[in-house]
């Protein structure tokens, strides 16, 4: 679950880019000129976003239809050709090399227009994988892959979690062995969102078993179509199958596929986790606070089941609302604290994650209580009526995916509150011994 985390659909985080052709021009433009020009291009080339219905209660990981992805790839290419892809990314890898203010200007102008929809893998590619690559991969690697990412020819997903390594992300057991100048990859990965339509996986494998677990790990770019890679879609409890599971059977890779240094994969992973957990929060301005009235989705729900005048339903709505505004206020507070002390940003981010992990289920339960019998059974094909139930099934997503509540609580306890450390049983010995000792657990220690 670690691999999709806090990104939502990823959509809004796809940085829009500018292509090489217009580079010179853009650079000489003032921000206002750039903005004006972008506005013209956007109006001529993008379509307005269709009016949306009310947001569903809870998060839903809906599948993106193949034709939508195809259209998304085409549109991303169009952005690239027009010079609006990778606006802040380095020019040598196909980006525009402009400042963040240019990107913001473009995004502000594009608000209300449809940007490329590359599904959940799009968010992972642009928001997590490419950002991590730019920080750690070799120039050769970047020259090969980043331009193709910017044109949406290469969509990347994370091959990070494993069936036996979920919360314990560094506990991966997939192994890459160097043989005759090549790397032979074996193992399994899970929770890779959208892998079934992506092109590459960014894969963490163990390359040394005789050092402690955080060492001996290496990242590889794995072509999903390569021989020996099997992708299986995982049917989720909601019936969707956005997540995938991969099996690697003697997959052959080369040194060109290595991202970052061999056996230094955990350093790379830290960067990746920062992007995945929304580490960007600290760079943004204050979170925009839009008064939204009182829990509009639950008010709508109460109306639809005829309980809008029921005092107990109204109290449940208000309870959800109080938590809603407290969570919004928390985000604003965290933004302030992070700007004041950027060094603590990564640790403070645990609060945002934990708030979702703790309160999403509470809110989903409130919605079920408001919905009553009508939230539990509904007329066949009345999708709107089923939303509360879907929200309920999905409500623990944030409490598990991308670092469980327990992991966040440890982080807050130790790194924010300064409480003494958890005893560690896996950091001081070769990983192969960790596995053996865990199987023979007796509780004996120091």
């Amino acid at each position: 679950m670690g691999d999709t985390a806090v990104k939502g659909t990823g959509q809004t985080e796809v940085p829009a880019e500018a292509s090489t052709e217009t580079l010179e021009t853009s650079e000489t433009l003032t921000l206002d000129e750039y903005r004006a020009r972008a506005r013209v291009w956007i109006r001529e080339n993008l379509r307005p976003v269709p009016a949306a219905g009310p947001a569903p209660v809870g998060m839903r990981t809906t599948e993106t239809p193949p034709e939508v992805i195809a259209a998304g790839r085409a549109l991303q290419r169009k952005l690239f050709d027009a010079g609006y892809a990778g606006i802040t990314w380095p020019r040598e890898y196909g980006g525009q090399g402009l400042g963040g203010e240019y990107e913001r200007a473009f995004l502000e102008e594009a608000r209300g227009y449809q940007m490329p929809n590359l599904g959940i893998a799009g968010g992972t590619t642009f928001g997590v994988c490419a950002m991590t690559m730019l920080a750690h991969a070799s120039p050769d690697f970047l020259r090969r892959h980043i331009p193709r990412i910017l044109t949406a020819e290469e969509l990347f997903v994370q091959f990070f979690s494993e069936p036996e390594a979920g919360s314990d992300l560094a506990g991966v057991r997939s192994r890459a062995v160097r043989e005759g100048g090549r790397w032979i990859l074996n193992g399994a990965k899970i929770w890779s969102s959208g892998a079934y339509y992506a092109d590459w996986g960014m894969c963490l494998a163990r390359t040394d078993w005789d050092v402690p677990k955080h060492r001996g790990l290496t990242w590889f770019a794995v072509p999903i179509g390569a021989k020996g890679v099997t992708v299986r879609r995982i049917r989720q409890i909601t019936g969707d199958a956005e997540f995938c599971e991969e099996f690697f059977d003697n997959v052959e890779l080369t040194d060109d596929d290595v991202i970052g240094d061999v056996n230094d994969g955990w350093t790379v992973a830290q960067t990746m986790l920062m992007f995945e957990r929304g580490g960007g929060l600290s760079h943004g301005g204050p979170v925009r606070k839009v008064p939204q009235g009182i829990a509009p989705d639950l008010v709508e729900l109460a109306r639809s089941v005829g309980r809008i005048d029921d005092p107990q339903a109204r109290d449940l709505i208000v309870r959800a609302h109080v938590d809603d505004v407290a969570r919004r206020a928390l985000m604003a507070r965290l933004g302030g604290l992070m700007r004041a002390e950027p060094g603590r940003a990564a640790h403070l981010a645990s609060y945002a994650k934990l708030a979702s992990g703790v309160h999403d289920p509470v809110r989903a339960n409130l919605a079920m209580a408001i919905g009553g019998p009508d939230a539990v059974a509904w007329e066949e094909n009345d999708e709107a009526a089923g939303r509360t139930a879907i929200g309920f099934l999905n409500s623990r997503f944030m409490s598990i995916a991308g670092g469980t509540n327990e992991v966040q609580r440890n982080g807050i306890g130790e790194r924010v509150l300064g409480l003494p450390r958890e005893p560690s049983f896996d950091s001081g010995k070769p990983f192969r011994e960790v596995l053996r000792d865990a199987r023979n657990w007796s509780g004996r220690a120091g």
Partner: protein
Amino acid sequence: MSVRLLAAATAEQGMLVDTTVRFIEDTLPLTGVRALAESTEPVGAAYIADAASLGWFGMLVDERHGGGSASGIGLVDAAAVAAERGATLQPGPFVGTNVVAHALSVAASPTGDLVSAGQMSAGPVSADTVSGEAGPHTDLLARLVAGQAVATWVAGAVGGLTPGAGEVTIRSATDAPGGGSALDGYVLDGEVRHVPDALGCDVLLVTGNGTDGLTQVIVDTTAPGVEIRALSGLDITRRTCSVRLSGVHVPAGALVGTPGTATEDLFARQTQVAAVLAAAESVGAMHRDFELAVEYARARIAFGRPIGSFQAIKHLLADTSLSLEMAKGLVTAAAEALGGGAPDGAELAHAAKAFVAEHGITLTHACFQVFGGIGYTWEHDHHLFMRRLAADAVTYGCAQWHRARLAERIGGVG
């Protein structure tokens, strides 16, 4: 693998539970329930007949009506069976059939007031003492007990039991368009949603508003004007239905009990019996979901340790275990008191359903947290329990409804 709802089961109760567990394992284990869920079939007639032979449908029926139970208190035995059913997410109207059979048995007794009286399966047969003839529903009762017929209860929004579900109007046939004599019986109109397992039932016990107050009649599902439609639902192991009654004629003999106050009392008792049995089914589901989570916590390794060795997991499971033990105790106490005619029977029944409805949800969330990602997969059984527990929480009255019944009793005793 048994839920062991009863802390101190008698030998007879132990046997009833054992045969029930074995029967389920042999005929419809969870893998079978899963397969059934993905098809559109209701549970088979053979399953019902075999279950009946174990005594599943006669425990709340007076012996003179062909009922009987392993111990002196049928409701305790029925609750023990319900818990085992819940642990394996058995489909079909077990609660419905038992409530209907119980209502028929109570209504057929001369005073009809077993509600406040005594043991659940005591009381003489109406046939002997009232008119010398067989009661109106003697035959149906026998068929229900024998598993030759299945029934469910169409209560709808009566008394707020199922908000938004709709209600049925029961008019005398003489008042109906076209008229007729009193012997013609009644005409039913209305649509009620959220009827558990109506599809596949032979008869319905319909509660509705009549000229003389609250009225209950038996309706054959094959009668003209009866339309039953399955709804989509969160709980895929059980089918919630919509029942539409359009000018459905039933004979005078279809009446169950006396309309008005007596039926209100019987209705209240039906809600309490249904509450205990539904809560018992939930407790079974809670038990199994929890058991799976404990097994997982023992086996799953992370950070060089089995995750169950972490206090975060261990204490979550300990707290969950506490509420599960409380739920089991409360359901047992309610079954004993309501079934045994104790003064606090009704109170405990409402409390049990209110407690289980809320703690069932809490428990399944806790288990989900222990399972982590694996709980998100369709293949893992957890979501089946999660779906069931959320659906159970509002079936036969949500926690709020049952608490409201208790609030009405504040200041009184029992």
